[in-house]
């Protein structure tokens, strides 16, 4: 009660109201703007005036999943795309080629699936079962690289494809380096490679081991290329394989093994040898698979075009990411596929 009395003594409610009201009115008089949302009722409220500029009129979400090998390309492209189209939200997830197809793309959740090998028949079936139509776009060429530690001195010339098959095949009983080549040390081979969710793994089976063989399982599988790199760098008797980008950016800690295919020469992996087609059989195409229904949305088509337009860029693909860019002819072919899909011509 005394508190109430005191309060009433210090100022009356009417005084307070008039003071606050007056202040408020005075404040509001000079501090108003026109409601930006009313001018363009068709636009969602988040699109304020001038936020986009001429090119920023497209908006929407784009979700990408799939191969960790293609991930750096997708992220480099998205980064540049975002600069021109800030209202488009791109999200990229690294799940491995197979993981992306099975869990995200063919269930209809993502717009693009990156893959470091072509889509497989059972994945095609799964996609067809969920009415997901797709097109295949080649985005770069990779040189799958076999690496050993820089301490490794006994492999000087390189490995043949047969020796690789012997080492990595499940049937062969190769335990030590001496089992591969008599002059090599009698030390167990430590093997590091990608796990079976990875397209790199699938491609390695296809190119080296052969469809009828199978990949040995007593190695250290991982989805993280860095783990392979660290494992191999740490031991003189280790052997591993991964995408070229990882090798090229870390070529001081590991050494790439030249590969001899059949009667050819030992060829070291490099952007040139992969582009010239000399580095066989381990140079491989990298893909992204957009969903056709997604391509028919303006912002996703724009992104696909942007990606392919820049897929011949030496600066992005070769220097920043470390793969071989497309040729002009390949790019035109891929852009044609996007056009056909976006217009619903297939």
């Amino acid at each position: 009660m005394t508190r109430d009395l005191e309060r009433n003594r210090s100022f009356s409610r009417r005084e307070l109201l008039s003071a606050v009201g007056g202040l408020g009115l005075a404040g509001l008089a000079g501090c108003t703007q026109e409601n930006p949302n009313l001018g363009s009722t068709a636009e969602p409220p988040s699109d304020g005036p001038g936020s986009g500029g001429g090119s920023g009129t497209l908006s929407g979400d784009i979700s990408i999943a799939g191969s960790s090998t293609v991930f750096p390309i997708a992220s480099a492209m998205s980064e540049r795309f975002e600069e021109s189209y800030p209202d488009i939200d791109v999200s990229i997830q690294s799940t491995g080629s197979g993981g992306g197809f099975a869990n995200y793309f063919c269930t209809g959740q993502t717009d693009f699936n990156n893959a470091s090998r072509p889509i497989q028949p059972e994945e095609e079936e799964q996609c067809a079962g969920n009415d997901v139509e797709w097109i295949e776009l080649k985005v770069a060429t990779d040189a799958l690289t076999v690496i050993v530690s820089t301490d490794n001195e006994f492999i000087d010339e390189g490995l043949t494809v047969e020796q690789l098959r012997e080492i990595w095949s499940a049937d062969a009983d190769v335990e030590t380096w001496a089992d591969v080549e008599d002059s090599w040390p009698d030390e167990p081979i430590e093997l590091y490679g990608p796990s079976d969710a990875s397209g790199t793994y699938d491609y390695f089976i296809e190119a080296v081991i052969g469809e009828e063989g199978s990949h040995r399982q007593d190695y250290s599988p991982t989805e993280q290329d860095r783990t392979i790199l660290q494992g191999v760098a740490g031991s003189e008797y280790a052997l591993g394989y991964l995408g070229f980008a990882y090798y090229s950016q870390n070529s001081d800690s590991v050494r790439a093994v030249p590969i001899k295919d059949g009667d050819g020469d030992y060829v070291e992996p490099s952007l040139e040898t992969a582009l010239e087609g000399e580095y066989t059989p381990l140079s491989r195409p990298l893909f992204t698979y957009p969903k056709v229904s997604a391509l028919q949305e303006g912002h996703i088509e724009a992104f696909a075009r942007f990606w392919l337009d820049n897929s011949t860029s030496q600066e992005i693909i070769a220097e920043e990411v470390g793969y071989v860019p497309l040729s002009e002819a390949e790019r035109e072919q891929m852009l044609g596929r996007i056009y056909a899909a976006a217009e619903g011509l297939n």
Partner: protein
Amino acid sequence: MATNTETGEIEDFGQVSRTVGTVFRYLLLAATMFGIVMLAILLLYVANDAIRPLTADLGWHLTFFVGLVLPTLLVGWTVYRRDRAALSFGALLVGTLVVSLMFSGGVALLAIDVIPPLVAFAYAVGLVVPTAATVGLTRYAHRISFTTRLIATTMVFYLALFGLPGPIGDPVGAPSLVPSLVEFVLTRPVIPVDRVMVATVIGGISAAAVGSYVAGVRDWTIGLYAAIAAFLASTAAGYVGPFVGLNPVPAVVVTAVAFVPTVAYAWRGAFTEGGSPLGLAFAATVVGGALVGAVAVDALGFAGPQSWVDWQFLTSSHSGTAENAGLYPAIGGSILLMSTVAALSFPLGVGAAVYLEEYAPDNALTRFVDVNISNLAGVPSVVYGLLGLGVFVTYLGRSAGTVLVGGATLALLILPIVIISSREAIRSVPTDLRQASYGMGATRWQTVKNVVLPESFPGILTGTILALGRAIGETAPLIMIGAPNVVFDLPATLGSKVSAMPLQVYAWSSLFASEDFYTKAVPAGVVVLLAVLLAMNSIAIVLRNKFERAG
């Protein structure tokens, strides 16, 4: 005290050695220190990689040593000798400023990039008006029955937020008859400028908090004046900001969230009864020293450390080159995820805790629930991720990796911890207080509302914040629910894909070949994550200390 043996002979003590005891004691000490030292070494190592203090000029270090460290030590020592409480107040004041500045950064991020000011303003009006009506109804209309009041209150809120007929009419396609208050505000042709709307909403909340804080110390009149002053300060900041190089909206937010509460705390600590103005001198030395050092370094041209954690890192999004890569969308994503988690887990957790402590009968079912909650707190996070994936994505068909799904999954993850810590807090309310309340004829509901919850609130809050601290670092559940590794924008809605700080750090550590990502961007991300975590935990610790002193 020699002992008698069976034969009746008396034996002496023999030798009692202290060695075993001493060894045991130091072994225990070693065990205690082992984890802490290891952690400290790791953190120093990471911080060194991220901030790289050794890359700064010697002059830079010297300037800050002379300008900041030396005066701080001198003043600190003097203050400590005069009045220990003053030193701890001064240190807390500096801490308050730093932590509240960090939080204002988070709020500014929301105000600028996530919630448009007009939307926030409209919803604030849509909530404040019916709340005022409800308070008025409760205060001035005693006669009406509880049911009538409940219906009236619900109606007022519904009308303000949804209009007529609102969501109820949507399924049958009823046309909108009366627009909601929110809609009404959203469609005004002339609206206040952004800085005024932000000042009204955030400055208003801050002013209300400061007002009630001051009123708690003094009385309602002073509190009201303080609230008005705080509100005016926030509003004014929007107009003063541009003159000191700040954009209006961030200026308002920083003033309302950081400066106003800090000033209130400084006033309380320095100028009220039992206050220690000396602490103010200490805080002023630290803040002033830092500013003087910054200005001097700039003027003398000494290069600072080439820290990887810099403004660019905090405000840009991921990039393919490590130099340009930043954490912004991940920071924003973490903030939004934590807001969702808090909004979901706090009411559920506290509700469950109140029920179990105050209402539940002691029977087999309750004990069964008890045991299960304790077990659930220990379930690995990846299992919760699987649960989230199964329930929200597969069963309910929400799209994977969104704010809502991520927040709900993390909320499930910390729910048992929130329940357990809230129960601890509620249990620590003395039974005397409850008995006294019952003795005065209060019902159980009144007792819970007026005695138990207010008494245990700081403890509940502490537990919740610590649990949020666990959630903010979780990576596995987010990977399980398919959160993307990289996004380039803040999520605009609850249904947008979201990344989080730990996910971004994980992506940098594993998906990019460049060594710079691994050796610099990753430590920088870890340092930012830890800074946010420590800021959250510091609030919890301050709350707990205050709570313990009061209790």
